[in-house]
């Protein structure tokens, strides 16, 4: 059971510059980020299959999870 993590913008730098990475399903987004050494706080927006979810969302088989940071702000 696996899911796809898509790193947008500066998040790429936390996963060696890659655009995406395949992970095991079943963990929360927060747990998944920690396992990838992405500091959860830096991620401003989590989109699962293009819908905003909280970091406590449990990743399911086949999910596409986009992680986004706000670099510039308002």
């Amino acid at each position: 059971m696996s899911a796809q993590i898509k790193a947008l913008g500066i998040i790429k730098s936390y996963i060696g510059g890659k655009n995406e990475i395949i992970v095991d399903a079943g963990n929360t987004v927060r747990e998944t980020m920690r396992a990838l050494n992405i500091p959860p706080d830096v991620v401003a927006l989590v989109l699962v299959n293009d819908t905003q979810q909280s970091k406590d969302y449990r990743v399911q088989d086949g999910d596409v999870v986009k992680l986004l940071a706000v670099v510039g702000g308002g």
Partner: protein
Amino acid sequence: MMNGYGGNILRVNLTTGKITKEPTSPELASDFIGGRGFGAYFLFKEVPKGADPLGPENKLIVSSGPLSGLMIPGAGKCDFTCKSPLTGGYASASLGGIFTAEIKYAGLDSIILEGISPKPVYLCIDDDKIELRDASSLWGKGTFATEKELKEKLGEEFQIACVGPGAENGVLYAHINHDYGRQAGRGGVGTVMGAKKVKAIALRGTKPIPVADLDAYRKAGMALFDACKKSELLKPWQNLGTTMVVSWCDEIGALPTRNFSAGSFEGGKTLYGPYMREKIVITDKGCFACPSPCGKYSRMKRYGTNVEGPEYETIGMIGSNLGLAEIEDVAQANLLCDDWGIDTISAGGAIAWAMECYEKGIFARADTDGLELEFGNVEAVFKLIEKIAKREGLGALLAEGTKRAAQKVGKGSEKFAIQVKGMEQSAYATHNATAMLLAYMTADVGAHHNRAWAITYDLQVGRELVNADKVARVIWLQHLRPMFDTLGACRLQWVELNIDLELYPPALEAITGVKRSWQDLHLVSERIWNLTRMYWAREQKDFGRAWDMPSPRFYTEPPKSGVTKGQITKLDDVNKMLDMYYEQRGWTANGLPKPETLERLGLTMLVA
């Protein structure tokens, strides 16, 4: 004819009624580029030292920039500069929408309002037909009715910028409204327009804008639009706009809660972006040439009303900061502020201060006109917004801003007037976020976030970290972000869609014929930054380090709840950051530009 420019500065002497035009100086364009660069120049040069901000010597300088009105993403930004009635120092507010494009089409770069009109007028600019017209029938009306009436009278194609009763009544943070939902918000730019008895500027232009190289301009413009369209961030940004960060700020302790006593709000979930989108948003709304419309047009069923908004700032300052948990109520409060014509950020800051006074027993019900000014009391917020706009009762005190209000009331209330230089801090709680705290301390208009926004950076490198790199980052942002206000275009395509900054210089060169790198542009920004610093030093007695200090809340009162519970910056670190900031900027230990810095920036003659 200068490529990329409207070509003329319009001067309107409201005292005598005389209207004149002079060609825009190529030296001015070269040294200050446009937008807030022009504003800073004219302010320093022409508004005499000690001028009363509400008097005839103050000027309101409205400026477009070389990118404005052209096919460049977000080319819809206009700068309003004046001496601030709120702070007594430099005020500059940025207006989106379409107004700036029309300025260029009318063959203008800046419109300078001087003097005071003996009676209410509106300035009507129809290409070269320019006159002051009687506005007595508009005086007293809200901003929406005013704009509607003028558009009906003159034609839909006229762009309107107008003030509401808040400005007419002298609320020190009155704003200027345009396209119904866009504002030049902060520092009292509307107050100055109202003091001059100018109800509105109505503007239509049909002239072309000359560009240096038409083919290169088209190519560079398309490259910018292409980058926006291709951005992975376009869809989420357009969906939620600035409301995207409400949930995140709540999560990281940056959401101002109950007068910045904390950075997380337990009622926050019904303020979040997706909730708002579902509950009240009807459609997206954008500005001139915007490929990523971030404005949200909302319908509040409970009240039977509509508003453009609310944006993150209003959600923070009028929502969580006042203990209001329901987005529909925040939207309604937003509407009231917009129509009465007062800045939502400063209004939120002032009301929050009053609520804390009430909570601490500094105000009793006799002082609040019978209002139960408890955090979370929606009806009290609605009533107080109206009272502020009318300067009635407690509203008269709050209309002065929290710094003056706290000075008048005393009893320790100065300690929780959350402001810097007299401007209420905008919606990021900075109990433990040293770069953002420094940004608020050193912003050129007072505690505003749009110069340097460093929230993510603080989290990336360590919130409590205090080092030279952090300071350098803040300074870099203070040059980069405001350059967009100088160029007359929105920064949010770069900021939010993460498009390549290097796409801008070719566009600017193709338009103006002048090649400038980002290094060149940073130097112009640094020049403007130092000029406005010198302006403060000239206008405020004993201006210096003390004016850059943050609200003591941020080094004495750790939040008792939320994500940043127990965390606070040390005063030692506040001072350390300021020392490094002054050093990196080439300023004295008291925060004044050194002669060699002014010399390097070509400012010595101007500030002599």
